[in-house]
């Protein structure tokens, strides 16, 4: 079934099922990220790890509006959420981040450089945006019916190649969905210190249809994404979906220099909690237990894997 139409056609019963599934996906992301931070602090991960804590509604809302069987996703340094929402490969992801033999990229890529099926990430801000446009052009050329989605952060709107890409996507009528996650910061820089004007309007002069919304409600995101996907696929044109969200964790593993009060205020509006509060306790508990067990099991399994490159 095409996810795009999920919301409009589902019955009350199905809607409840969907809510639990979204919760499962969001919670999986949350638990995996928390585990990764813990494993990092215990020395099981080197380098860096950018977590998606607080932004789960974006990935889950958008990716569930896609056709996972054919659509293409480009993502960035903060990709775990997009990756899990897309393919649910917890073990492949954790092993990759932890440099184990079973990682999706064999331990070569690491956290920022992931690939599985039709998902590709890279660690250069903005660099993957034209790739998404090229992918959209290729899929259009092949007549596959696939659309391409690219996730980018507020800070990444500083990169010129993003505007080159917006222009060409619109000029050539390409089926690409630009999803901006404004999580308020680029590393330490509040978006207001990096950008002039209203970020949600950046695609306007290129005649790209846009929508802007608060991304604290996964269903709101999903509805908007489904509409955007329908437009992109149906009209064969780009769309610019601008999501206001907030990063609850540190930029990467390090210090968090933001005002703790600000973080606390956003924590009170945590989209995961917001969704949780709408769920029937039984189903919710079952999901929580299943996710916790799964993640715990996976951590153990990954820690038992040999290090990537270790002689067998």
């Amino acid at each position, binding site marked *: 079934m095409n996810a795009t139409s999920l919301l409009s056609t589902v019955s009350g019963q199905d809607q409840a099922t969907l809510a639990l599934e979204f919760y499962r996906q969001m919670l999986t992301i949350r638990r995996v990220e928390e585990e990764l931070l813990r494993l990092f602090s215990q020395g099981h991960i080197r380098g860096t790890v950018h977590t998606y804590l607080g932004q789960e509604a974006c990935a889950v809302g958008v990716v569930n509006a896609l056709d996972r069987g054919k659509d*293409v996703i*480009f993502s960035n340094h903060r990709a775990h959420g997009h990756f899990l929402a897309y393919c649910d490969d917890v073990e492949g992801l954790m092993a990759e981040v932890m440099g184990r033999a079973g990682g999706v*990229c*064999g331990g*070569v*890529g690491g956290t920022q*450089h992931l*690939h599985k099926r039709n998902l*590709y990430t*890279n660690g*250069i801000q903005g*660099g*993957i*945006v*034209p*790739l*998404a*446009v*090229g*992918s*959209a*052009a*290729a*899929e259009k*050329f*092949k007549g596959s019916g696939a659309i*391409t989605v690219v996730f980018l952060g507020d800070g990444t709107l500083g990169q*010129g*190649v993003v505007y*080159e*890409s917006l*222009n*060409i996507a619109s*000029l*050539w009528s390409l089926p690409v969905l630009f999803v901006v996650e404004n999580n308020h910061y680029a590393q330490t820089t509040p978006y207001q210190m990096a950008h002039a004007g209203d970020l949600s309007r950046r695609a306007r002069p290129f005649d790209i249809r846009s929508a802007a919304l608060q991304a604290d409600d996964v269903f709101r995101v999903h509805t908007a994404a489904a509409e955007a996907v329908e437009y992109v696929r149906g009209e064969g044109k780009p769309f610019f979906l601008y999501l206001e969200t907030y990063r609850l964790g540190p930029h990467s593993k390090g210090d968090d220099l933001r005002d703790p009060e600000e973080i606390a205020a956003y924590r009170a509006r945590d989209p995961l909690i917001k969704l949780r509060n709408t769920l029937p306790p039984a189903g919710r508990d079952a999901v929580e237990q299943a996710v916790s067990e799964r993640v715990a099991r996976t951590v153990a399994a990954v820690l038992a894997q040999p290090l990537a490159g270790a002689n067998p």
Partner: protein
Amino acid sequence: MSEFLYLHSLQQAMHRILAEDERAVVLGEDILDPYGGAFKVTSGLSTRFPERVWTTPISEAAIVGIANGMALRGLHPVVEIMFGDFITLAADQIVNHAAKFAAMYNNRVSVPLVIRTPMGGGRGYGPTHSQSLEKLFLGVPHLTVIAPSLFHDPGECLYQAVVRDPTPVLFIEHKLLYPTRLLRPGEHTALRIETWDTATAYPTMLVHNYERGEPDVVLITYGGTSRLLPELLRDLRDEEIRVSAVLPALLQPLPIEAMVELAGRAGRVVVVEDGVEGFGWSSEVAVRVYERLGKALHAPIARVAARPTVIPASALLEAEVLVGRDDIEQAIWQVLY
């Protein structure tokens, strides 16, 4: 065949590529007919294959990025960068994207992208339209760099790069070669032209100005400087200097065997590159030859390259900076005596 130019070979190859390879698409600035691209390599393509030839805005980074995306998704994109000088704008897409994906994703993808671009001076275009910037990209892992000489079949090299090569390829065309007649094995009476490694897509050509015996000196070079060789080698033959020129089409990875083999026979070697001197192709070639031949060389290797400065627009100043026939000849005399 006497009118068959380097340019024609590339033009024909582009037609053949699009006719035979349905995954091939072409992107670049001002490449549509009737203009057909600044140097006409894409001439006629948009008329014959209107759906597969895309003229682009002036957005070099995005164009290469788009082609990267196309290649990842199974097409065979050919990008034209109008002047090689502008390749700097696509450096990130080449170094941190095209060349990285295959290895970074543990060899589960390939990026069959070809970036074609004209390099070189000699036409008075001035500092930002005359450089030979391929040197910036030599030493970038997993990037193939090709620059056929006039003794090659440049169209065939291009065909192989687009249709068969799974790696990203930077394909260098020297501006001064476009209007030059190709000299293929068997064609030129005064020179003996051989293909060293007939089995590879991007062969090394050997050009000798003598019939039998061993060379007095071996000249290793590539691409645009090949235009200087027919006359130079003929003149040197008149002086009874036996020269073998070794011209790889492949700049990277470096096909060193022919160079070492010939260099070993002469013991005297000149390495010439069109770009500015220092940290370039000729540095790597020379050091590899030293490493392999060591004391078997009769003289230090002479390196010839452009002067390390900007390439001036005006004629005399430009000629002072660029590599000319006389610079090569002088280097040959230097290693001989």
